[in-house]
């Protein structure tokens, strides 16, 4: 009887976590989108959007009166893209909530992080817009480019901590020292891969508004675009939390944690507006050369 109550409490905790972790991720992600737009505005000496602008955008997109759907797969693709990130959020431990992070480690997470791009590819495929097809082929090539250094970094970090559990890594870092001090080379390579993962300049060739009309997003209207705006906020949050968990020791409490993830995300955002963009093949070349090299040397130190 006692064990039954115990497991019921466990179950309810997990259910509450499953509900609140994506919700928190969404709202923090919206703040990150706001931060990105404010940063770009400040760097260009503009005022920038008002505080609730990301919410206005999403509400407006979902409240469009007419919607063009190109078929079932188009709609499912967006759901897969957003769902992939929602699934990732419950694997990322935050202060006070672990979700199911102890069940699936960082390897599951790196698989989940590929789902959104594949979902987008599904959805865009049915739009049959040539700009969209070019965009998504570039996006998948870009994924191939940044995933190689990212996986090497993940491998190195897991080797160093002798564990693939994010909770274990965070506990170790909080007891000893932050990962960024123990493996600075891997952290540098990770930051490089993060720039690609967030799709920021100079690695945003697949969006390229002036040439291929935002690439994968070209046929997305109304609720589809709204779904992608939601996805973007999840994407920033995921990137920030993942890097913080791997190298900055997670967080003991929310203020510290939020400070860290906003700091991490602000680095690629700030750098983004200083650069033009690489072509796809150049991006692959840069990504497979410098961060991979740095990460491999980093692994050599860790081993």
């Amino acid at each position: 009887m006692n064990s039954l109550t115990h497991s019921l409490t466990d179950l309810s905790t997990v259910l509450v976590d499953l509900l609140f972790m994506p919700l928190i991720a969404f709202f923090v992600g919206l703040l990150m989108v706001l931060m990105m737009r404010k940063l770009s505005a400040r760097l260009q000496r503009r005022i920038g959007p008002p505080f609730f602008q990301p919410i206005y955008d999403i509400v407006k997109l979902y409240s469009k009166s007419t919607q063009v759907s190109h078929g079932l797969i188009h709609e499912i693709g967006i759901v897969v893209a957003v769902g992939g990130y929602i699934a990732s959020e419950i694997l990322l431990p935050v202060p006070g909530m672990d979700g199911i992070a102890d069940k699936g480690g960082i390897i599951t997470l790196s698989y989940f992080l590929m789902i959104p791009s594949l979902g987008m590819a599904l959805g865009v495929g049915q739009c049959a817009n040539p700009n969209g097809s070019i965009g998504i082929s570039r996006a998948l090539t870009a994924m191939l480019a940044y995933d190689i250094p990212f996986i090497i970094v993940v491998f190195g970090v897991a080797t160093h901590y002798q564990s693939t559990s994010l909770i274990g890594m965070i506990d170790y870092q909080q007891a000893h020292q932050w990962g960024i001090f123990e493996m600075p080379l891997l952290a540098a390579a990770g930051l490089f891969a993060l720039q690609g993962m967030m799709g920021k300049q100079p690695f945003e060739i697949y969006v390229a508004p002036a040439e291929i009309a935002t690439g994968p997003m070209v046929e997305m209207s109304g609720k589809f675009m709204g779904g992608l705006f939601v996805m973007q906020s999840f994407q920033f949050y995921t990137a920030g939390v993942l890097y913080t968990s791997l190298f900055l020791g997670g967080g003991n409490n929310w203020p510290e944690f939020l400070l860290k993830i906003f700091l991490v995300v602000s680095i690629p955002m700030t750098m983004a507006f200083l650069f033009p963009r690489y072509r796809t093949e150049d991006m692959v070349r840069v990504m497979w050369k410098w961060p991979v090299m740095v990460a491999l040397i980093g692994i050599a130190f860790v081993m």
Partner: protein
Amino acid sequence: MNTLNNIPVQADNNKRTNPLATVFDEFIQFCQSRSLFMLHYCTGCGAIELPPAMTSRFDMERLGIQPMVTPRQADILLVTGYVSVKTLKRVILTYEQMQSPKYVIGICSCTVNGGMYWQSYATAKVLNEYLPVDVYIAGCMPRPEAVISGLRRLMANIEQGKGNAWQDYYQRYDYYLGNQQHLFGDDWQTPTDVIGEAKYYELEAEQTYGKHTDILAQHQQPLEAQTMQIKF
């Protein structure tokens, strides 16, 4: 063109009675007025006034207006300057691909009455005859302050629920199609099935159909997907 008497005024029968629903509608209207994605179809010289309106001097983004590059994502179609007959076809195709609620802003005198191209054989003079225009910003060319003031007028209209010109295109399609056929010939046809959309979204009115839509029905080619092939 239109006097106040021949503008069709229709009683809005589906007014909501639930006060909460009204609050929800007002919230949505507020969000729609605060977030406008703008597709600038830069046809003429007025386009040169847009960069200062968007960048650091006048900064449109603080009003929630930002440029978008495809008609699918855009809310505002900004026609900046004279529209030649050839360009007008593209403007109409672009407009029909946008998703409602959508707004058209005509910038510069040329969109209002032809401006200095009044005597030109190749320009469409009054944009309002081919597309329902929400706001005109007159001037040759209007300065960024005027552009922003026009956009603010549009925002106020949307917030008060008056930015409904897009419904007019469905409800009086025959009129607009007639003017388009007058310029482009009777076999004029766009890839967007406007009448089908009007039926689907229940926006059709008496004047959706008429003799011009009959002409369209005679000439209309069924839309087919293009075959995908690689030619060398």
